[in-house]
């Protein structure tokens, strides 16, 4: 494919993606007062993040066991109110250690 054709594809991909992001941001300017919508928007982020994490995290690594360790480590540190960075890095280290143990020691 020549570069010009690629740019047309790029424009469509980036354009549609930006469109779905920017339209609501420009249209919803007032503070929402409706109690149902407010409650919905309050719960939604937690629901979205949970849906994206489970079950996907358990297939993100080479072994389910290392993913379980990574997840458990993350929950443990999150319960202790550790920062996002700390929880994320601890979770990665948990996965790394488990993967190395499974690959080289077991």
């Amino acid at each position: 494919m020549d570069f010009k054709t690629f740019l047309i594809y790029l424009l469509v991909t980036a354009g549609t993606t930006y469109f779905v992001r920017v339209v609501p941001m420009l249209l919803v300017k007032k503070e929402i007062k409706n109690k149902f919508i407010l409650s919905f928007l309050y719960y939604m982020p937690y629901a979205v993040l949970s849906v994206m994490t489970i079950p996907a995290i358990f297939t993100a690594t080479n072994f389910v066991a290392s993913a379980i360790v990574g997840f458990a480590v993350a929950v443990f540190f999150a319960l202790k109110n550790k920062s996002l960075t700390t929880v994320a890095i601890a979770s990665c280290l948990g996965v790394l250690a488990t993967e190395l143990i499974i690959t080289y020691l077991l």
Partner: protein
Amino acid sequence: MQRSAYKQGVKDGIPICLGYLSVSFAFGIFCIEQGLTVLEALLISMTCVTSAGQLAAVPIIGQGGSLIELAMAQVIINLRYSLMSISLSQKLDETFNARRRCAISFMVTDEIFGVASSQDGKPPKEYFYGLMITPWFGWAAGTLLGAAAGNILPSVVITALAVAIYGMFVAIVVPPARDNKNVLYCVLLAIALSCIFAFVPFLKGVQSGFVIIICSVVASAIFAYLKPIEEGRG
């Protein structure tokens, strides 16, 4: 310019950046496999910043597929960003004019949405800028590295980095779920729905963008109806 808000944003963006590095690294490798050049892979990541959307777009681009198919796939997969933009619009203070709204819309991603919406009240605009800048660089840099030098890092390190984003999600969801029973039950319902889509045979084929929308909308709507939040909360 509020330096402290900007710095706090940058700090909160670091785990997102780490997670993006690994995901976009894999994306860079994928682009080369699909016949794209390093420059093309980089341009896609710099202008789109959507993991699932880009993964769907690259095979269509690589095969020279239809532009309508491409546009429809992007809208369906990325429709959840519309919900997130509506939610984030409530987090913006009065300094956000149309131009600034257009600017930050570019970086409405799952992770940035998650972190921004977990902030109390309305963070200053500098916080949003700080929060968005490092992940953008991470997303672009990871793609470039993956496309240009996909097999330099040992695979076990890439695997470990892949859970950074999930670890961050856990860090956002767990504390409020521990402190608020309604959030906990809403999260558990959303997870149950998500598992149904992942494991029930004829539902497995549903687009991941749709699954995220359906599960989170159903769970949030049920709890918004049964357990509306108190005034002044959220």
